[in-house]
């Protein structure tokens, strides 16, 4: 009999709490999971006072015989349906350790809940009804344990009372399940005959199964070993965020595998930039000024780097010598829980570490119903089925094959913003160009630029308005558009916010997304300019580097115009209420509050938008465009451009 230990405090005070084991109970519906858990709680003295009596009397009121499983059916809905619908977690203690028992539902319909529960487990108890033997959900759960990476398994053959504690029946079921598991590369640590209802084999040996020389269920639980942080593998730290709360630039994330030390040479993937670890940051600041020098797998840390290299959420900080791959294509073995079957051409969001990337399913190699372990054709992967697939990612992401690193070698699939599958990375291909450039032949416009210039009275150009939110870029852009149009020109306003509604709707506000946002706007603006239009871009474009890239795309008639209202005035204006929300902490990464704005050092033109009336500001812009001969001044003809 297992009892509570006498004085846990002595251990806790020494900073050494008892080991915690997370064990999931899986198996076919009605094979006795809840009954076994109820029995375990009772046998270990873990039930709250009066709970058993309350349930017995509640059963009596309902006119039902008492069942051990009622202990778990805390929810009204569950009692009504008589089945466990979601993962529930129950704690108890054995002699050796604290145990969290994760009760996973056996019904196919709730496979997503079984996965939620089993993925947290260090070990699994697979329960099988001695009468029914191995059923489809037994196989399905076995397969999923394999995919979820649960390697420690004990099999419990329940309801031995219903087969008269027959040894031959036990051996037959034992042989079936052992074959199934070994096909998945799994071996059961023990196969145990029990009757959860009667208590045989759960906490104590039973004379009715005297032929069984293996452990009881409790002994099997105590023989599992808790999962250890993977310190011995190479360093992998997926970046959760980069914080600039003060003058430090802290890269925050959890070390999934390996160790990190101050001074280590590291690489940031997928970019491949290398630098060294300057410090490991903690709060509260350590009393001795030095701070921690090392950290290892399992720790959530913040580090600073020797160089101000570009790092963003989704990147992986890794050992420079043993880096993950920058992956553009990968093969994976996945389970699928989505309502709509997964088919070739499907667009999915793939999560690897902290990275999220859009991907296209380009191939299905196998599709299997793990309940029957038979191929079901490779056309699609149905709900609750598994398969091997190939994904093409829309941008390179750092990843490893699962065989190299179990943490950065697994993926989660999302459909419509909801997790709908996951699996193991079987192999990765290095990044390559999405479309080979040599196959692209640009088509030139039929109307020569000179013709357009004659008609519009101006050359094509890009007027790039940059400035803090609230600095008046959009207002100025609109007024300029109006002015140019009224003098017969062909202006077109490209407003950053407007384009985020469509062209750039897939982009967020990470540094990489901001850069891509600017690149796309610049490409559109440059195309318009080549075709005689004056493209007026109104976009915060906070990064000097991104604006330099835009200028490179924009061509020779690219003009950076700085809407130079000071920050306090922009914040006071706050036309869209963004500053207020950013100050309240409601908007993160907001330029001017929690993200930097790099003001242009040498803009082509700076306009004091806070001092000038809008008409005066547009006058200034118009004069500038005449000076640079985009617009023809009074009595002046524009000469055709040689080439733009």
């Amino acid at each position, binding site marked *: 009999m297992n009892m509570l230990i006498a004085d846990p405090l002595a251990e806790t005070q020494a900073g050494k709490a008892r080991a915690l084991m997370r064990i999931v109970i899986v198996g076919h519906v009605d094979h006795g999971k809840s009954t076994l858990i109820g029995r375990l709680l009772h046998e270990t003295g873990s039930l709250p006072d009066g709970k058993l009596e309350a349930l017995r009397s509640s059963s009596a009121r309902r006119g039902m015989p008492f069942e051990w499983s009622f202990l778990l059916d*805390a929810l009204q809905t569950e009692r009504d349906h008589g089945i466990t619908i979601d993962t529930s977690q129950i704690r108890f203690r054995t002699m050796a350790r604290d145990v969290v028992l994760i009760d996973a539902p056996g019904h196919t319909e709730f496979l997503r809940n079984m996965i939620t529960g089993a993925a947290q487990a260090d070990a699994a108890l697979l329960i099988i009804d001695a009468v029914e033997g191995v059923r489809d959900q037994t196989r399905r759960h076995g397969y999923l344990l394999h995919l979820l990476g649960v390697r420690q398994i004990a099999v419990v053959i329940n309801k031995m009372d219903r087969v008269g504690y027959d040894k031959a029946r036990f051996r037959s079921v034992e042989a079936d399940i052992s074959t199934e598991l070994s096909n998945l590369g799994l071996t059961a640590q023990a196969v145990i005959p029990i009757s959860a209802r009667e208590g045989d084999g759960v906490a104590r040996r039973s004379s009715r199964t005297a032929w069984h020389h293996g452990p009881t269920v409790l002994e099997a639980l105590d023989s599992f070993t808790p999962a250890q942080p993977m310190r011995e593998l190479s360093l992998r730290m997926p970046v959760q965020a980069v914080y600039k709360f*003060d003058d430090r630039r802290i890269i925050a994330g959890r070390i999934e595998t390996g160790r990190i030390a101050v001074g280590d040479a590291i690489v940031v993937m997928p970019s491949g930039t290398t630098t060294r670890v300057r410090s490991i940051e903690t709060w509260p600041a350590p009393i001795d000024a030095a701070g921690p020098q090392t950290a290892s797998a399992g720790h959530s840390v913040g580090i600073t780097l020797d160089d101000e290299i570009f790092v963003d959420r989704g990147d992986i900080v890794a050992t420079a010598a043993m880096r993950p791959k920058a992956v553009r294509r990968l093969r994976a073995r996945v389970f699928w829980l989505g309502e709509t079957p997964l088919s070739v051409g499907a667009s999915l969001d793939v999560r690897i570490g902290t990275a999220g990337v859009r991907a296209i399913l380009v191939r299905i190699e196998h599709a299997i119903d793990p309940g029957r372990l038979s191929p079901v054709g490779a056309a699609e992967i149905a709900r609750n089925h598994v398969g091997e697939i190939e994904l093409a990612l829309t941008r390179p992401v750092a990843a490893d094959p699962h065989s190299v690193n179990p943490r950065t070698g697994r993926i989660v699939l999302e459909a419509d913003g909801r997790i709908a599958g996951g699996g193991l990375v079987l192999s990765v291909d290095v990044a390559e160009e999405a479309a080979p450039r040599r196959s692209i032949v640009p088509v030139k416009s039929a109307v020569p630029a000179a013709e357009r210039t004659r008609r519009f009275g101006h050359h094509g150009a890009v007027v790039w308005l940059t400035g803090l939110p609230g600095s008046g870029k959009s207002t100025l852009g609109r007024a300029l558009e109006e002015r140019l149009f009224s003098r017969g020109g062909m202006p077109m306003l490209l407003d950053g916010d407007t384009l985020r509604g469509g062209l750039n709707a897939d982009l967020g506000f990470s540094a990489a997304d901001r850069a891509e946002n600017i690149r796309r706007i610049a490409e559109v603006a440059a195309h318009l300019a080549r075709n005689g239009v004056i493209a007026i871009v109104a976009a915060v474009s906070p990064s000097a580097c991104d604006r330099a890239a835009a200028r490179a795309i924009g061509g020779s008639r690219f003009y950076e115009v700085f809407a130079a209202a000071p920050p306090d005035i922009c914040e006071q204006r706050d036309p869209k209420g963004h500053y207020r929300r950013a100050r309240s902490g409601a908007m993160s990464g907001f330029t001017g509050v929690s993200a930097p704005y790099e003001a242009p050092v040498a803009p082509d033109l700076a306009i004091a938008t806070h001092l000038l009336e809008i008409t005066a500001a547009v006058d200034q812009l118009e004069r500038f465009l005449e000076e640079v001969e985009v617009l023809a001044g009074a009595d002046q003809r524009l000469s055709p451009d040689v080439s733009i």
Partner: protein
Amino acid sequence: MDRLDELEAQSVFILREAFARLRHVAMLWSLGKDYNVMIRLARKAFFGRLPFPVLHIDTGKKFPEMYAFRDRYRTEWQLDLIVEPCPPIEAMDPTLPPAARSAARKTEGLKLALDRHGFDGLIAGIRRDEEPTRAKERVFSPRGLEGSWDVREQPPEFWDHFNAAPPPGAHMRVHPILHWTESDVWAYTRRENIPVIGLYLARDGRRYRSLGDSDITFPIASQATTIDDILVELDATTVPERSGRAMDHESEDAFERLRASGYL
């Protein structure tokens, strides 16, 4: 790395995910022990100061010691505190039992705060071991438009990948200490020297194990005058933590009904 270190690292990871993936989060602050631990964890996650507001849904019926605690530590911990008063009891569903009806005010106060501030994420300090329906929770738990919780339709959540896209107009509840136990909370409080409201410690043979509204929360018999005493007491007890919270026990499904309609 001991168990408290592991718990802390996991909670810090969750808090950082919430801040990175949701647009507009707030952390609830009930002033109780779990929430004070959560604030400590958030200060660790974000290097000293919370980058989001802290929300106290105020029934106006907390113990005076709790208000004193709030007023002191909002300043000391540099919290950006929002206090949201709850609507009166008359506005609550009259079919609920009396204490549950009283507790429902908090749910309505929460809905008002959500409407007013447009949060898409609320960080809450519930734990699996407190209560059976909470044992079924996800770390990132989507709520319906009315703040409702549909336990039957919970999306899968595994490998620390969270569903962070609430349906338009709805919000996510984020539970960074879901995996902690009552003993963990006290052991961590002791290790980190987190201040404790005096009501948790025994005076005249009684102490509060869980703090809620003063009219529907009752003390337990206890001799635990220090956190060490509490840890020893918890180790021996088989009485549930929320036994002093009247609304949990009025009828078999009262607490589940509260939770389904958006209670924590």
